[in-house]
């Protein structure tokens, strides 16, 4: 294991990213998708199935977490789905995502509603990760204990910025162990990594240490999920797959609010990694207000009218 780790680190050291080429590629992505009508509606529904419906606020209570879970398990108005013949396809979001303290509430609600929707929890001193390793590990264990099936950990940016990739690798390996059976998503907090090259390196290290997903941001940094940064990360995913045969998922999060953006994200995945990365087991969208906008666009497709927000059931 140690020698493979050293091989990996050599691989990390050779990473080169040309910023302008990445930016140019990112500019082309939105133009690739000119979907209209039922194609657009179908793609929007696909986006819904990839959403990690999220609430991460200081004022979260069992009440609003309950509402969130119920919305996640019936994300689009039934009559709209019916008119597209999609009502019996078991359409839900991919997961709900909450703070560790709210995991138990969410698990309880979903169980009561007979839903098998997984609960995801952020952990490891979210969002800054500036707490002792011991407490960060404990946080993971407690969230898993409470029933979280997915853990979104934040990486230690201090180690990334000071180039201590080996130490970062070791730390994430410990998180992996603490997660046990739960899926682990590693949040890179790209807005604080400085360069694309660092983003690529951090992506590789996170994958080597056993992440099931790599995720762009916490939503709390100044810069969140942008298309260029996503291109760098999905390239790392492809690179990792080509070398090891392991498919790792991707989760952009932070600032994704419109239906149009969600379509660009799907296009980006399709163009860069192919159709397999359009399913929730390899692609998630971390968002809170996105769902409402998608639902309104679907309403427009079905009825030809533009909806007001209050016409859609609230989360």
């Amino acid at each position, binding site marked *: 294991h140690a020698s493979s780790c050293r091989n990996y680190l050599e691989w990390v050291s050779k990473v080169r990213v040309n910023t*302008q080429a990445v930016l140019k590629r990112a500019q082309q992505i939105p133009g690739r998708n000119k979907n209209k009508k*039922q194609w657009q509606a179908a793609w929007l529904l696909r986006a819904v199935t990839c959403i990690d419906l999220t609430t991460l606020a200081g004022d979260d209570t069992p009440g609003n977490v309950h509402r969130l879970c119920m919305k996640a398990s019936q994300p689009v108005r039934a009559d709209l789905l019916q008119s597209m013949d999609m009502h019996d396809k078991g359409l839900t979001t991919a997961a709900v995502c909450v703070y560790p303290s709210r995991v138990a509430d969410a698990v309880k609600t979903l169980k009561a509603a007979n839903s098998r929707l997984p609960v995801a929890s952020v952990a490891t001193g979210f969002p800054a990760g500036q707490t002792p390793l011991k407490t960060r590990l404990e946080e993971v264990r407690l969230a898993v204990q409470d029933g979280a099936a997915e853990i979104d950990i934040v990486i230690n940016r201090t180690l990334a910025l000071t180039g201590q990739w080996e130490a970062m690798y070791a730390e994430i390996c410990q998180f992996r162990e603490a997660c046990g059976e739960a899926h682990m998503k590693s949040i890179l907090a790209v807005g604080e990594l400085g360069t694309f090259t660092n983003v690529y390196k951090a992506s590789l290290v996170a994958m080597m240490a056993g992440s099931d997903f790599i995720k762009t941001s916490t939503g709390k940094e100044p810069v969140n999920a942008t298309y260029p940064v996503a291109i760098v990360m999905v390239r790392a995913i*492809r690179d990792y797959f080509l070398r090891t045969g392991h498919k790792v998922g991707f989760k952009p999060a932070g600032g994704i609010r419109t239906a149009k953006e969600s379509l660009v994200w799907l296009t980006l995945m*399709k163009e860069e990694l192919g159709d397999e990365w359009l399913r929730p087991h390899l692609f998630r969208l971390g968002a809170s207000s996105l769902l409402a906008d998608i639902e309104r666009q679907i309403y427009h497709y079905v009825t030809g009218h533009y909806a007001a927000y209050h016409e859609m059931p609230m989360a």
Partner: protein
Amino acid sequence: MAGSTIKTVYDIFQSMDYGPTSSSTATAQAWLEHQSGALGLFIDGRFVLPAGRQTCSVTDSSGGSVCTTVCATDEDVSLSVSSGASGFKAWSALPCHVRAKTLLRLVSGLQRYGQCLSELCDLAQSPSSFSALVRLLQYYSGWAQLRDTLLPDWTPRGLVAVVVSDDCSLYSLMLKALPALAMGNTVVVIPGVETAIPALLLAQLFVEAGLPAGVLNVVTGNVLSLASTVAQNPLTSYVTYSGNKNDGEKLCRATAGMGVPVSLSISLGATCPFIIFESADIDSAVDGVIETAFKKKRECQWLLCVQESVLDIVVARLKSRMAGMKSVPLQKEGDRRLVDAAVEEAQQQGATLIQPCAPSPSGASYPPTVLCGMAPSCPCVVTPPPGPLLPLLSFRSQTEGVTLGNHSPHGYAASLWTEDLTLALEAAKGLSVGSVWVNSHSVLDPSLPLSGHKESSNCTDGGKEGLFQFLRPSSSSPSLPRSSPTSLDYSRFGTATSAAIIPQGPDSSSCPRSYLQYVGGKQCKSESGSSVSVLAPDGAVLAYCPDAGRKDVRNAVEAAIKVQPGWMKRSPTDRAQSLFTLAKALEMKRRDLAASLHSQTGLSLEEVDKEVELSIAQLYDWAARCDKETGGILPVPQSGSALSIPEALGVVGVVLPDSSPLLSMVSLLVAAVAMGNAVVMVPSPKNPLPALEFIQVLQSSDIPAGVVNILTGGRDQLTQALANHSVIKAIWYWGSVEGCQYLQHTCASPLKNLWLHCLEEKDGGRVWSQPPPSLLEERWRRAVQWKSVWIPTA
């Protein structure tokens, strides 16, 4: 069938396919209908639809007829040329700012009718970027405004014929037509099939924008026959061509001897290296390959060169990126057969294929295909087949990568990928191509010169550099007189042997001296060993000089090309020092040179002294210029740096005029050599002695052996030999009408830059004794080719 293609939301939800893209062509159709579906010629500011002409049908991608265009006759051509010639009086007399404003007004016209234009381009299968056209107009409007301020000693040529091949893009056409108009010329555009419709619309918009009638005419039909008819008309001053190589060559041959300069930009079909070094951002490089290499319509044929250390990584990435790509429609009927044959041949030679899917058994499309494991000698590398095929070659070291990229007759462009700045700049310097795209590809902007090296062009488009093809120095008249081609037997030109020297009898008192010629820094006889006699003005035999032929040209070119790269690499200051030593050496030997001039020309001692003096001055002048005539960093619309660099052409053949034999030779020699070229010079057969005497001066200077070579003998014989040597990139010729015709005909392939003169100066050699600044500028611009290096940054 129709029922099964309706996909439900659930179908798409599962498959996640893209929907069909529908592009409307309603606006374009409306315009075409307004023209009754039959487009006329655009002559003298309006559409004319002469009766009884053949028509040609323009088809869209599905083969349906879009509309018809007229096949113009000689009569139509002559109307358009005379309209252009009379339009020239009005247009060239306007103040610069009025011309500039007209171009700017077209920008708003374009913005109004942009939809119509892009739909028409799509219909005619010649997609073009609307924003690129706007950029062209804005850029050249600026030059129209500033012509008199920044190019004061230059004047427009007159009526310019802009000719493009059938497959050429609208951008390339406008890159010729707009600078011509901006400089005050009038233009007859002869568009190809694909550009005919958009060019006609643009002409109409131009007139709406206030362009006077006759300034821009568009004549459609068979490009080559129209072009030669236009060239034959004595009112035409210049013909410039953009497009494929084949038609360009034919155009040169068809117009040889008409006395009109013709230049070619082979903007299509060049083989261009796409070089991926180990230090590259491999993913971005592979993205670039995917984006550019398999397009249905692409301007160049890429050749993927990958450093061996990253070959596996690149191949793996290509495989994964190409998976799921769809087959690409082929351009022409018979292409599929050619593609199949090429792929089969490559496989027989051991190539492995990267393909997203197996090709359908028949049909006019083919999947994108990378041919791995090719060698430079493979037929699909030497003559690339059509279709979405990309040969992949590997190289070991950085130097080998550049060598591999250079090993082709083409010199249009190269794309190179590395994160190592030093390597990028070194490779950019080493590649003999007109455009180097670092970590990018296919970037164009009119502010940068586009000047293909080697066989890719013999003129420069774009940038300030590209304006000069549409201008001439105000002080001089065109150097070629209008003429009709004579029935020259091209295979026999220059093959006559010189008159043999026979013993003159027993007059031993004044045995004429035998001179030697100068090859590779050594004085030598001709290979054949024979000599010709040089006569004094009174007809007496003054001396004997070698009668050089093909073998001597071969030796001289070999000596020149051996030393030229090193000479070019030396710093300009270094070259300047060498030229100073040449000037000093001439000062030392001024008496000898004056004496030889005197005996050769019979001019008074005072006059020959003056010629020597002026020659010395020319040497000092160009020594000073060496490090002053440079390129620079140009502002481009995107972020990053773009460099424009003048580079030596290589070996230049100079066939010298009879007049001012020393001064003309020194003036041309020093202009070429100062810019880093090596020269093979052929002194006037009438007055060769000063040049032969000058060999002493060369030998006592610091100029490296081989940079200057001097061969004497028959002008036609040596011209023929120079024209048929592929290493020679340019020929500067003073001589007969037939010689000009021969060169125009022969130097189409391999392509050479020609600078032709077949008139003795009427002003008593003032171009030599008192050259105005614009003439000196023309000399150095004739001695260089341009390279653009793009280094985009974030």
